[in-house]
């Protein structure tokens, strides 16, 4: 414990230097915490995708449509528990530049397939009963200020009604949340029948299908049955697990995680150099002192431990403060009115950060600690 007191005294000997090195560490860990939360949010689309859910697409591209007749044939495939079809609507509310994810779906089966979306039974029934009803995710409803009971116009940037209008009237009948805090609630769903009967470009086509299988281990079998069924037809299908579909979609944007990881690495590198240098300098300034301590009977290994403890403590203070700050930053970002996935700072970020703290403290302390360990008393005292 006495040693700890000495470590603390050594650390606070030059207040300005302590402040600056802690600040540099603080910055690095704040960047780390925030960017890791971003990366986790992007990955959550992949991690939260259900293992027993498959997506059936047109083989040419997901923007090519499929005939509606496929829906009943897929539903009849063995081991298919539930099936809904979805059409991308290209919806926007008031401002054409802020497009959001809006799909025309088979409402009765929809909640069976996407069972992670939470809607009260009353709202669910209200949706099924109201052909012009839509359900919106909590995030998007808050964003646009929609309440259950509102009647709102939504435009499509793809489709138009038979009379040439591009806006449709909807009743907001339900606002859903997710089972997991990171579940995406930025989407809107409405009735396929309403869409199919009012839009003007020939009807009876669907965008893609989402299928829930009775068990993930049967996925391969179901994929094969579906794709074989439509092989050599004018619209061949490609069935993929939802996880693979989401992953491919995110990868289209580019290698986001590579960019984020490089930035975090760059930040750590800068801090490593600054803190490491500072440590080396402060030990070198204390050469004579260490000589005196050794003369007094402090063993070399004890001094080694003290120097290492000093650098670990330095990293720990900056690291904890930095991750705490990123927590407040994340709260701020989550509350900002922008369409972003929900950022969460969970224990895995903390444990990863603490690992980096130990690494940083060790790497920056090892060189000065080694030189203190090897220091010869005579050289040390004569150098002053």
């Amino acid at each position, binding site marked *: 414990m006495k040693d700890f007191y000495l470590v603390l005294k050594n650390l606070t000997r030059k207040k*300005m*230097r302590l402040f*600056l*090195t802690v*600040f*540099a560490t603080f*910055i*690095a860990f*704040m*960047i780390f915490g925030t960017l890791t939360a971003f990366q986790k949010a992007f990955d959550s689309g992949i991690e939260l995708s259900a293992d027993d859910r498959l997506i059936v697409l*047109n*083989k*040419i*591209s*997901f*923007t*090519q449509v499929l005939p509606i007749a496929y829906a009943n044939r897929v539903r009849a495939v063995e081991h298919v528990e539930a099936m809904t079809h979805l059409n991308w609507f*290209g919806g*926007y509310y008031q401002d*054409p*530049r802020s*497009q959001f994810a809006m799909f025309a779906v088979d409402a009765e089966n929809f909640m069976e397939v996407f069972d992670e979306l939470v809607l009260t039974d009353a709202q669910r029934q209200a949706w099924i009963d109201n052909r012009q009803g839509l359900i919106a995710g909590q995030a998007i409803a808050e964003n646009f200020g929609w309440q259950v009971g509102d009647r709102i116009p939504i*435009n*499509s*940037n*793809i489709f*138009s009604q038979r009379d*040439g209008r*591009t806006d449709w009237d909807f009743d907001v009948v339900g606002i859903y949340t997710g089972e997991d805090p990171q579940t995406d609630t930025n989407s809107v769903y409405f009735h396929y029948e309403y869409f199919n009967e009012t839009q003007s*470009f020939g009807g009876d086509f669907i965008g893609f299908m989402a299928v829930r299988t009775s068990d993930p281990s049967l996925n391969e079998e179901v994929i094969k049955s579906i794709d074989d069924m439509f092989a*050599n037809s*004018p*619209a*061949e299908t490609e069935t993929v697990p939802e996880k693979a579909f989401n992953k*491919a979609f995110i*990868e*289209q*944007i*580019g*290698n986001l995680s590579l960019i984020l990881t490089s*930035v975090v690495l*760059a*930040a750590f*590198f*800068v*801090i490593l*150099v*600054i803190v*490491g*240098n*500072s440590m*080396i*300098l402060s030990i070198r300034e204390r050469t004579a002192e260490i000589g005196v301590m050794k003369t007094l009977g402090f063993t070399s290994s004890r001094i080694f431990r003290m120097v290492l403890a000093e650098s670990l403590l330095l990293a720990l203070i900056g690291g904890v403060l930095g991750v705490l700050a990123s927590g407040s930053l994340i709260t701020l970002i989550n509350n900002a009115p922008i369409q972003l996935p929900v950022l969460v700072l969970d224990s895995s970020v903390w444990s990863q950060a603490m690992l980096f703290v130990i690494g940083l403290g060790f790497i920056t302390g090892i060189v000065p600690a080694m030189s203190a360990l090897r220091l010869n008393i005579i050289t040390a005292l004569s150098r002053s």
Partner: protein
Amino acid sequence: MAGFFSQIWTVIVMNILSLPRRAWMSLAAVFAVAVVVAVLLAFLAMAKGFERTLAGTGSDNVAIVTRVGSQSELNSVLGRDTVNTMMTAPGIALDDNGDPIQSSELFVIVDGVKRSSQTQANIPMRGLFLDGFDLRENLTIIEGRPFESGRNEIVVGKGVQNQFEGFDVGAEIRFGKTSWEVVGVFSTGGSAFESELWADAPTVQSQFQRGSSFQTMRLKLANPGDVTPIKAFIDNDPTLNLDVQTEADYFASQGQALNGIAIFGWAISIVMGLGALAGALNTMYTSVAARAQETATLRAIGFSNTSAFAGTLAESMVLSIIGGIIGALAAWLFFDGFSASTLGATFTQVVFTFELTPELFANGILLALVIGFIGGFFPAWRSARVPVVTAFQGVE
């Protein structure tokens, strides 16, 4: 007065020449600034490259007609009747036979495999007539020949060929059940069209079940940049629910998609810059402390405290500029001309090249200078106030 400046100059030179004595500490400051500048420039070069690619794509001489509110070519649909009506609009340039110079086009998405990640990504495929080639500036067929009408042939953009697998001339490509032959490669001088596959419009209509509909029309303008007569024509006809804008405006608005990246780059760099600033301050305070006796001696023999201030500030700025230049050079070496592709506004891959312009370079150096100035100012202040009596004491 001359003496005042020569004093300052002497101290600056002295400080800088003595840098090697504090080599490690100085290198740390230089390195920190270099990394911060390199990170900033990497992000800015990415956003700039994307913006330039799209801005370079649109022409002021061409108007693009889409369905009202569709925002992008992908979402638009134009029926055969609409296309025919639009050909009679005023303000369109006419060819030698008195026919309007126009191109009716389709825009569909197909899958390709990206070379870099071996994953599937969306490629735009444009159906057009050979007349449409004349509406693109700087178009050259760099290999092979254009497609022939009525055949399943495609010409591929240079960008597609670079970023995706299997688009060599002579290759056979399957989209769903249909198979296509690559017959040529085209270049449009680095614009976004190079991210596309081009094929015969009626063939695309039949192979993708589009009936007789198109998605967009390009019209050569009689007066470059002037779409008002066409707009007036559309407004007067209640059956036409269309938007018209110059192609330059259309692509300029799509080029803003990566502006968020530039803002993110600035935010990250400024935060990291604060870290580097802490490093610079650390270095300079150490340097001032190490030179306290020297400074006091200079003061004792008649040097002003302004010269001590200027000396320290100059040392800090020099270190930062060196760091800034190293960072900028590293960014230029690694990122300038780096080719990448990302998802653009039409849900398809846009191939673009990172561009480190002199203007961005200046931004990087400016950031380094700000770090150097603030990092030097406070230690310089302390240096200027070293009491003369220190000269006659031992250090510390």
